[in-house]
């Protein structure tokens, strides 16, 4: 990094200082060695909109200081989009594949960064449209009609992306937020649901240590995501999901994650499923002493119904929650008070 700006390839370029030089400075960062020089080069060549191999390499070095610098990412994409200006040995598709490959390690190392994922999404979108040109702006890409897409190849590429996501999980953790959102985008955008249900089951349902993963709320959220698509696509239907949720919840009755999911499934207003969930909650109350999650779920269910029986149940449940959901006693008291007012 420190030596890059000293290379001969840069001898024609004068460094441009930043425009706050000479003014009182605030929150002045003690820049690491080499950073100011690299930025100085950038500020000079970006004025002339230079798209070149040395510009690309420059962005690589600058980004390694700050993967959140969205202007540098934009500049990098423009350099790639104008590849014809500085490479004659390659086509648009190959350039994108090279870039996706190049960005793999830094994505694995920086999964909390937003820009690395947006960059991948944009590149992949370009790739899927199999155009010989590439576009640096997602809005532009999206207005293109899809040209001849090799389905088989696209499926392979998507699979490769999903494998990258697994590597990210292994390297950091299975809650990595942007990673999950990127996976969802892949599934939704390319209708890539084949094997997705099997995959999620492998993570925590069909495994020995599945019990440790019951608390992984991201898995439950992913199941809900799959449920939001027709089961002919996603391979999962409401019955499968609820069966899994009840089976897993039985192993960890005190953990909130499967209960959030079960409570969420009430929204589908499927009579049979709702009954199954309600009965499970009631069974839990019998089998345990003070389970708050089961009661909160039943409260949610009964408080939405208008029958006298439901109203009685609601009152009874609130009383129990006040007694047993000790951490949130005052909350349930306030619910009780607002109910009395009604």
């Amino acid at each position, binding site marked *: 990094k420190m030596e890059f700006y000293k290379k001969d390839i840069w001898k024609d370029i004068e460094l441009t200082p930043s425009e706050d030089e000479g003014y009182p400075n605030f929150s002045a960062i003690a820049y690491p060695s080499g950073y100011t020089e690299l930025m100085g080069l950038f500020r000079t060549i970006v004025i002339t909109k230079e798209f070149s191999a040395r510009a690309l390499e420059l962005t690589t070095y600058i980004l390694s200081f700050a993967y959140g610098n969205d*202007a540098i990412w934009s500049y990098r994409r423009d350099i790639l989009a104008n590849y014809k200006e500085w490479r004659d040995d390659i086509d648009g598709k190959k350039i994108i594949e090279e870039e996706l490959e190049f960005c793999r390690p830094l994505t694995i190392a920086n999964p909390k960064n937003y820009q690395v994922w947006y960059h991948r999404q944009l590149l992949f979108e370009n790739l899927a449209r199999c155009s010989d040109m590439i576009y640096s702006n997602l809005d532009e890409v999206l207005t293109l009609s899809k040209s001849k897409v090799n389905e088989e190849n696209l499926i392979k590429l998507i699979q490769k992306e999903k494998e990258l996501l697994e590597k990210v999980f292994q390297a950091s953790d299975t809650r990595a937020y942007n990673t999950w959102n990127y996976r969802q985008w892949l599934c939704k955008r390319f209708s890539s649901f084949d094997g997705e249900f099997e995959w999620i089951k492998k993570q925590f349902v069909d495994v020995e240590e599945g019990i440790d993963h019951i608390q*992984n709320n991201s898995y439950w959220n992913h199941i809900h995501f799959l449920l939001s698509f027709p089961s002919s696509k996603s391979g999962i239907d409401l019955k499968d999901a609820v069966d899994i949720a009840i089976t897993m919840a039985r192993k960890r009755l005190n953990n909130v994650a499967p209960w959030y999911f079960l409570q969420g499934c009430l929204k589908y207003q499927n009579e049979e499923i709702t009954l199954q969930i309600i009965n499970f909650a009631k069974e839990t109350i019998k089998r345990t002493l003070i389970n708050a999650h089961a009661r909160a779920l039943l409260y949610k269910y009964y408080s939405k119904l208008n029958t006298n029986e439901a109203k009685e149940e609601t009152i009874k449940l609130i009383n129990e929650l006040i007694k047993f959901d000790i951490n949130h006693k005052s909350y349930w008291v306030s619910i009780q008070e607002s109910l009395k007012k009604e």
Partner: protein
Amino acid sequence: KLDIKKKMEKRKEEELARYKEALLKEGAKHNKEDKWKELASKLHIKQHIRFFAGHLLKAIPEPYVALDHGRINIIYFALAGLDILNALDMIVTETQKEAIIDWVYRTQKEASGGFTGSYSTPSSCYLSTGHLAYTYTSLCVLVILGDDLKRVDRKAMQELIRDCQDDNEGNFKATRMGSEKDIRFSFCAAAICTILNDWTGFDKEKAFQFITKARSYDKAFGHGPFAESHSGSTYCAISSLHLMGMLDRVDDLEETLYWLLQRQKRGFQGRANKDEDTCYSFWAGAIIHQLGGIDHVKKISSASFTLSCQDTEKGGIRKSPQVDVEIVHSYFGLAGLSLLSFGNLAPLEPCLGLTKRAAAHLK
């Protein structure tokens, strides 16, 4: 069958024991007032003032180079932190205030709208663009310093907001050049419009549709449709709706409140079953406050967790006891304490990220 019965009985015994223990803890309430007052003395105010002042007026450590392109954020956190500590006038002279205001305005994109957030990109190049997040923090800095906002190019600002909002989905990208379009930028846009009292470029109905779609099955919010519910996204969602004046169109807010309250262990989590992190004392706490539930928070627990994350020598607050202090968690940790009416910290306007003192300028 006998085995299962034994297991169930054992489980019930354990539950009963835990229940009794929890009751005892609750019963120790008569000590609460004293304990709360005692805690107030444990905030190392002088050190924190020095910490924020240093991050504004002195050279800050190398690792912050990662934030160089959005340096306005560091200025914001430093000033906002000093404001919460009632130490603005103590630390920042009138001359310095004017110089900071000038620093901010020189990052404004006149004609194209918004603020760039730093000087790392030359203003005449095609990449130099207003950014919704840095515009939000720029405006906050101006308001904190009492600027009258007259130099803001309002027309260009609304053009920027209009161009950043997606016509179909209602969500926002951060700049005209393009970026991810998640709920954070819905909040930034709404806050900008609130501060300038101008919504002409902001399609409220479309924005509302997007935010609604970002609501998860547990009634909290994620970054976008189907995303996992998250305290930060929930802050952005509810704050936006409040600022847009559309919170009354949302049902089941008591359930959202309960979800947020469930995020408290000692400190707050960002998501279900994740670790506590001091910044969520603000993201979750602010919306708990907004929804009228701040008295349901275990204040002593939350404050104790934040206080345990202080660096009592250098000042500043950590994300969690195991890592180093930095300015982001220092600000949000303090902001989270302020929401609990801790000590003499300045009260906040929770959905704007400003103290009430600063926000009063907007009237």
